[in-house]
């Protein structure tokens, strides 16, 4: 049997300058790196960006998730990292995503509107479960789209 599977959910504040091009290229780099590392480490999950925040779900073997989280913690591109959940799971919610990025398509815009605040999505107001559910639903819609 594989090592026990865990899900980790956190949100953080974006520290990348508010420059569109700079931000896009940084996100690109983060995603590229994540996909390579995560594939190697059997980690799947999703990353969301909005309103100056990141929210991310990482799922995979505990030691690998811990190691990835430690690297992410040291990353200067964000700060105020709040760990929202760390729980054992029996099944992955994002089996097909080495690291999905959600934050550009129209679906999210609607979804965020649904959540309420006009300034957009503020992960700091959501629990780990809520973020997880949100990302999972978004991922399903994204895949269907």
């Amino acid at each position, binding site marked *: 049997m594989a090592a026990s599977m*865990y899900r*980790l959910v956190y949100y953080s504040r974006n520290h990348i300058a508010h420059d569109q091009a700079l931000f896009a290229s940084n996100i690109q780099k983060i995603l590229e790196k994540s996909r390579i590392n995560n594939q190697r480490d059997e980690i799947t999950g999703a990353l969301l960006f909005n309103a100056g925040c990141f929210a991310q779900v990482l799922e995979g073997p*505990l030691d690998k*998730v*811990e190691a990835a*989280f*430690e690297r992410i*913690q*040291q990353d200067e591109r964000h*700060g105020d*990292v*709040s*760990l929202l959940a*760390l729980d*054992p799971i029996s099944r992955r919610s994002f089996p097909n995503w080495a690291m999905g990025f959600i934050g550009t398509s129209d679906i999210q815009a609607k979804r965020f509107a649904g959540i309420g605040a006009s300034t957009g999505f503020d992960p700091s107001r959501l629990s780990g479960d809520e973020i997880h559910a949100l990302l999972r639903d978004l991922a399903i819609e994204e895949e269907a789209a």
Partner: protein
Amino acid sequence: MNVATSFPHITEAHSAGIPSAEQILESLPRSVLVVGSEGVVTYANRASMVSLAAVVGSEMRDLFPGCVLSLATMTGAPSCLLISRDGEKFDAGIAVLGAGQFLIDLRPSLDARTADMQGDLDELTGLTKRNGLLKHLSSALCSGPASSIAVHCLDLDRFKMINDTLGHAVGDLLLKKVADRLTAACHKDDIVARLGGDEFVVLQRNVEEGTAETLASRIVDLIGRTYVIHGHTINIGASVGVAIGANALQDCDLLRNGDLALYEAKKAGRGRYRMFESGMDALLFARREMEIDLRRALALKQFKLNYQPFINVTTNRVDGFEALLRWEHPVKGNIPPLSFISLAEENGLIVKIGEWVMRTACIEAMSWPGEMIVAVNVSPLQFKADTLLDTVATALKRSGLPAHRLEIEITEGALLDDTDNVIQTLNSLRALGVKISMDDFGTGYSSLSYLQKFPFNKIKIDRSFVAGDDADSEAILRSIASLGTSLGMAITAEGVETAEQLARIRGERCTHVQGYFTGRPMGTDQIPVFLARNDLDERI
């Protein structure tokens, strides 16, 4: 040459064939110097004359320009790096010869870094250890004032607790991650060292305006971020003290200054950094002096208790007195508790002082007329010491004071850690018949849940709510009072200083008042007179 005079007794004693110690020194292929504490050479062997052009009377600072460490400091290090006028590097071993003389043995230097590679690393974290750090430090200081360096001394907050609760295996992994994060925060040229336990030092090179502050705050931020280890979420913090070696010509001990700054950072509330300032040593010195005095104060009977009355506003009578500690210092006069209690808590003296207060208050209360209550403050640390119950029981027995005349005042701080044990102690105290009140309510964590956890006899509302005549203070005062009364607790408003405040308090369901207006603190011998006076009735 006039070197033999330095070693007058050695030569003759040896039989022919065995060279004298002096001959050996003179033929030694490497340089040896003897230097007085002022840095003046009093002996130079032949090799040192050749390679350093050293003679008796040469000055260290001319032979090794840029070296700013004093000899006394250098003797603490196993060896330190010295660079000659020609740029030649030496690993200098320094020994004290006595009478203010130092022996300096100058070995041609291996690169400091290679010395590190040869096993002088911390096993757990792979970081440099103390010896390595001292080497790097002296070499950095000797490389001259062109580039200044900073020393960051750091201490992990709450590490011990993690180690105790989650075990050493997790504690070790945590230290590794801390080491990783420190290394990540630093520049390649910087040195990260672990001095043992949870003590780390970063030697930052090429410091420019503001860069030491930036690194320190980065360290505080990075180390304070959540760790995940074996499925545990762990939060610790870092306190950092920073000393900059900008003034490279001064003989300053950077590590010591960094430690002083660290001490200030911890005192200021941890999870922060502090830059060394020149006043800090004076501050620490004053504190040390105060600590010495404090240790003697009990034995020299410099403590005294004063008593401030609290008045029951429903009966308009004095119900009792709160014992207030005074320290009458023979030279400095009266030292207020605010200036020494935190020190006493820091060094544990508070337990002994607390015992004295408890004993004395019980004895003195026995001489008061009627059934007056004596209220005694108890520090959170006395709960931790585990002797509180014993102290109280003994004080009651020895003095003969009935338990219902003793009221113990605790602060919210006492309930913060280890709440279950504290509540158990409180229950045992209550079983003795002692009353328990919650002091300074509203200032700390103000958790109403504490009021549920234990049925306090009384809540004392902090003076700030009485003094504040704004709507907020009043609303808070009123709601604490009504919550307390609904839980069956008495309510004391503290710090009542004017008739107007007293009138206001009466309207707010408070049952008791205490403050300058209804009675200043007094010595035990003044209590009978105070109680016999009836002008109190006129005022309240």
